[in-house]
Structure formats: structure tokens, C-alpha cells
């Protein structure tokens, strides 16, 4: 236990640090004296940005050589821990690689992992993770009861990234030991799905569509609206599962967490699993033909109406601007 030394699992692509990493650094800095990052890939290209966000050291495991991050980063951290140079706490993001790292590492070190965390707070000499449960209606606080590394997997948008104006972090090499069979998966190819406009989890305005749109073609109204307000289109799981849009559009418990200035929900009922992903939005507008729809319970502006009537007019009004 203890949390004097926190490591953040860093993620970056093409020399740009992922927002989740900067968010985790902001919180880590508030909690610990020593904040460091462990990362794969070209650490030198991100040392300045990480330093500016409060990291003093970047532990670099070097290139993944097309391998997956999970087993490599977990193995490097586990070795550091067994040599006594590891951290007290590791923060990973709830991301594709973040969960891999946390899961692998917890099994390697035989230590628990606390997941779906949206906040962290000190409790004596340990940290507690705040997890919302039951669709966000209850808050629980969980801590470990054992010595050794504490691992938390934290949801994106839980903290606000903040630059400190600090100098670049120093880069030090962290060795990856023998992975046995665990590291044998190889990335052969990468495909980027076309998308224009801001990322869903970074957009200032999110326009989301649900089953109330009636048919897949009508989702075009959502994309049109999103592009008119320079926002990002999102979706409920109902339309993702129905194959109207890819999984990357999904907002909610099993999708993305978004906290835009404005969230416009169109034909979405407001199931608790959807609400978990968007109720942190600064302003919520909902259009639903059912005045009893739960989404109205959290909307700042609720429109009881038909999306097929309201949206075309809204598009027209925006186009006229």
C-alpha cells in the first residue's frame, strides 16, 4: 500500500499523447509526490508533453515490434516491482490496451485490480477507487487490503488534463523479460475507419441517435446535424447492435463516456446504461415522442416530439445560419 509513487500507463499515437494519459497524470500529480509514466513506442517524442503534464520520468519499453502492449508492459512493470523499483500504484485507462495491461499484471503479481473507477481518494495510506454501480445510481468506494502494488483501471473523462509548464520528463529504459508464449500475437495490418470532425469523446457537441429514428437511413440526420454544429455523432447500443453504425459510436456503460458542452439525444429512451456514458455532459437536450421517457429526467431541455419532424427543421435552421 501507500501511494507516494504513482505510475501511469501511457498511451500515445504518432507522437501525440492520448487524452486519457494526460487526465490520469493530472490526478496522479494531485495525489503523489512522484509521478512517472510507463509507455511503449517512441518515448522521446512524447517526453516533453508528458513532462509538461507532470511526469518526471518516462519508463520506455521501446518498440512493440508489432506485438501487443498488454503482456510486454505488464511484464516490464512486474519485473520493476520485484526488483523494488516499481511504483506503489499503477493507473491504467479503461482502454483497449489499458485493461490488457491491468489484467495481465494483476495475474503476474497475484494482486487485485479495481476497475471502472471514476475518482480516487486517499484513505489513510491507501487509495480508494470510486466506482459508480447500478447504472450510476450508487457510488461505491473500493480499496485493496494487501501490501504491494495497487492497480486501478480508470474511465476516460474522469479527470481534467492540465498542463503544469514543467520541463520534459527524463526517459529511462525499462526491460521486458522473457514473455514465453504470452507475447506471440502479431499485428499484421492496421485499418483506420474514416471519420471527419472531432472525436466522439473529445467533441464539444455530441448528437446521438437511438432506436427512435426508426430505420438505419434516418441516422444520416444525426450525421448531418453533427457536422453542422462541428460536433461528433454518437449512438445508443440499440442501433450499434442493430448494425446501423460501428461500435466506436456507442455511448454508455459498454461504450464511450462523453462529457461535451451539449449532448443532444434523439430517439433515445435513456436506459441507465446509456445515461452512465453521458450524464456528465454540461447541457443535455432530448427529443423523444414519449413524455414518460427516462431521458427527460436528466435533460435540461426536453422536447416531446417526433424526431422526423423536429430534426429536419433543426437541420434547415442550422443550414440557414
Amino acid at each position, binding site marked *: 500500500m501507500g501511494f507516494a509513487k504513482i505510475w501511469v500507463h501511457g498511451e500515445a499515437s504518432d507522437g501525440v499523447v492520448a487524452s486519457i494519459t494526460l487526465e490520469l497524470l493530472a490526478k496522479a500529480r494531485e495525489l503523489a509526490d512522484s509521478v512517472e509514466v510507463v509507455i511503449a513506442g517512441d518515448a522521446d517524442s512524447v517526453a516533453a508533453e508528458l513532462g509538461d503534464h507532470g511526469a518526471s520520468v518516462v519508463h520506455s519499453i521501446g518498440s512493440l515490434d508489432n506485438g501487443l502492449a498488454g503482456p510486454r508492459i505488464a511484464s516490464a512493470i512486474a519485473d520493476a516491482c520485484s526488483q523494488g523499483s516499481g511504483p506503489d500504484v499503477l493507473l491504467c485507462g479503461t482502454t483497449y490496451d489499458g485493461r490488457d495491461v491491468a489484467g495481465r499484471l494483476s495475474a503476474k503479481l497475484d494482486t487485485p485490480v479495481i476497475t471502472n473507477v471514476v475518482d480516487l481518494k486517499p484513505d489513510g495510506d491507501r487509495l480508494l477507487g470510486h466506482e459508480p454501480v447500478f447504472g450510476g445510481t450508487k457510488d461505491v468506494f473500493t480499496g485493496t487490503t494487501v501490501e504491494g502494488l495497487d492497480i486501478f483501471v480508470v474511465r476516460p473523462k474522469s479527470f481534467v488534463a492540465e498542463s503544469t509548464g514543467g520541463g520534459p520528463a527524463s526517459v529511462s529504459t525499462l526491460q521486458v523479460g522473457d514473455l514465453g508464449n504470452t507475447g506471440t500475437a502479431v499485428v499484421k495490418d492496421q485499418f483506420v475507419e474514416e471519420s471527419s470532425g472531432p472525436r466522439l469523446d473529445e467533441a464539444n457537441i455530441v448528437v446521438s441517435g437511438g432506436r427512435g429514428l426508426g430505420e438505419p437511413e434516418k441516422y444520416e440526420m444525426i450525421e448531418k446535424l453533427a457536422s453542422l454544429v462541428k460536433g461528433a455523432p454518437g449512438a445508443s447500443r440499440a442501433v450499434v447492435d442493430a448494425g446501423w453504425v460501428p461500435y466506436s459510436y456507442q455511448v454508455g456503460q459498454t461504450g464511450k463516456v462523453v462529457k461535451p458542452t451539449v449532448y443532444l439525444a434523439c430517439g433515445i429512451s435513456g436506459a441507465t446504461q446509456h445515461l452512465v456514458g453521458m450524464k456528465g455532459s454540461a447541457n443535455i437536450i432530448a427529443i423523444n415522442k414519449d413524455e414518460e421517457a427516462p431521458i427527460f429526467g436528466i435533460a435540461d431541455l426536453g422536447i416531446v416530439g417526433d424526431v422526423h*419532424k423536429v430534426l429536419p427543421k433543426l437541420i434547415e435552421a442550422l443550414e440557414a445560419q
Partner: protein
Amino acid sequence: MDVVVCVKQIPDPADPGELNPDTKTLKRDTKLILDESDSYGVEMALQLVDAAGSGEVRLVSMTPGGETGGLRTALAMGAESAILVSDEALAGSDSLSTAKVLAAAIKRSNPDLILTATESSDGYTGTVPEQVAEILGLPSVTFGKEVSVDGEQATIKRQTESGYDVVDCPLPAVISVTAGVVEPRYPSFKGIMAAKNKPVEELDLAALGIDPTTVGWAGARQEITEIADAAAREAGEVIVDEGEAHERIMAFLDDLKVL
């Protein structure tokens, strides 16, 4: 090719859960069903074994109370047999204890491929697949949207932040699959009848050689210190559209200066 699918049996998510105020954990006194998230893994396994032309789909599930409702659903879809690890000492297990138990059960069946969902619907830690892989010393690929197998190797389309990666992975391996990637079949009447007679091997911890103090409450090594009601968000203005609601939305956006 033999595939093991890890299937979790959970209380119906449509039925909201409740925490036991004394033990601060989920009350689990309702009937358990097959986690919908795992129905995709079952379907994918059936398709892969079909494509391979030989082999079978086996299920592994852990639950403290010996329930088989969810397993029967997956057996009715077409899985051949199941191992159910059930022991009262398992109540309160965290994800790592769960992974230890699943790994021990999977080992008995020595499969070519292990499929799981990326995350369960009730606990959704999303860490069990990687923990199982690490305990078994196997490679793993999470967030699979498409899986094909050619001899000793699987090729997986793995969801990424910006699209997907194509990953080659030697077998045996653990692969987790995301929801919605295949269309889970509905069990036929024949399937449902056949499922009643399919073998479900029930094992307790002793049979797996697992020390009961390393799992369940005893082995969880984490504790909930506090449960509170979350702050509720207040409802705002609700208007009925009479043909001019779009103007109200425009004014709302204008006030926020986001246009």
C-alpha cells in the same frame, strides 16, 4: 478444433440489482440467465468449429450456487458439454479469483482456443480474459470483432480507437469478442430438448485443487468501504413540440454560444 467458451450466468439485467447492506455485495437470490455478452462467444465458437469441420464447443462457468440455467441456454444453442465450477466458498470472488478458477477448469479440457466476452454485463471489469491468459501462459487478443482459424493460427480483427488491427495469434490462445459481432442463433426446440441430456460436469474447489481461502470473500483482498446514493441530475424544462421546437433548441444553443 476444440473451443472452450467461458460463459457467465448472471441475474437478469432487466431486473435491477440490489446491494446487501451487511456484506456490501450484490444480492444474488434470483434465477440466473446466460449473459447476453457471452452468447456472441458461443455463436462464434459454433461457427469456428463448423468451419474447421471437426471438434466441439465446451462451456466453462463459475457460480457459487450450482445454477445451470444459463448453461442450458448455451447447450441448447449447440455446445456439447459444460464444466460448472460451483462452491459456496466462491461467493464474493473478485476478477482474479474468478480467473484462477476458470483457468483451472479450462486446463482440464485442454482446448485449442478459449473464447470470452470482452466484459460481462454485471461486473464488467473486463479483466478476466487477460488474467486467464496470463495464468495459463497463453497469448491473447482482446476486443475481437472477427475471428478466423487456419490450422494452428487464429487471425483476429481487433477493435482499436480509430478502426481495427488485423492480428495473427498462434493457438492455443484466449480471445475476447465484443457484443454484436455475430448473430447468436435462437435455440431450436430440438436443441432445447437435447440440452437437457448434455453432460454438465459439476466440480467443487477441492476437485480443482484450489484452496478455498484463495477465492471468494477470503481471497478477494479488496473491500468496499462505503456505499452512497449518487447525486441525481435535475430535470429541466420540458416542452411539447407544436412545430416550433427547433427554434427553442436553436435559442438554447445560441445562449450557450456553441454555434
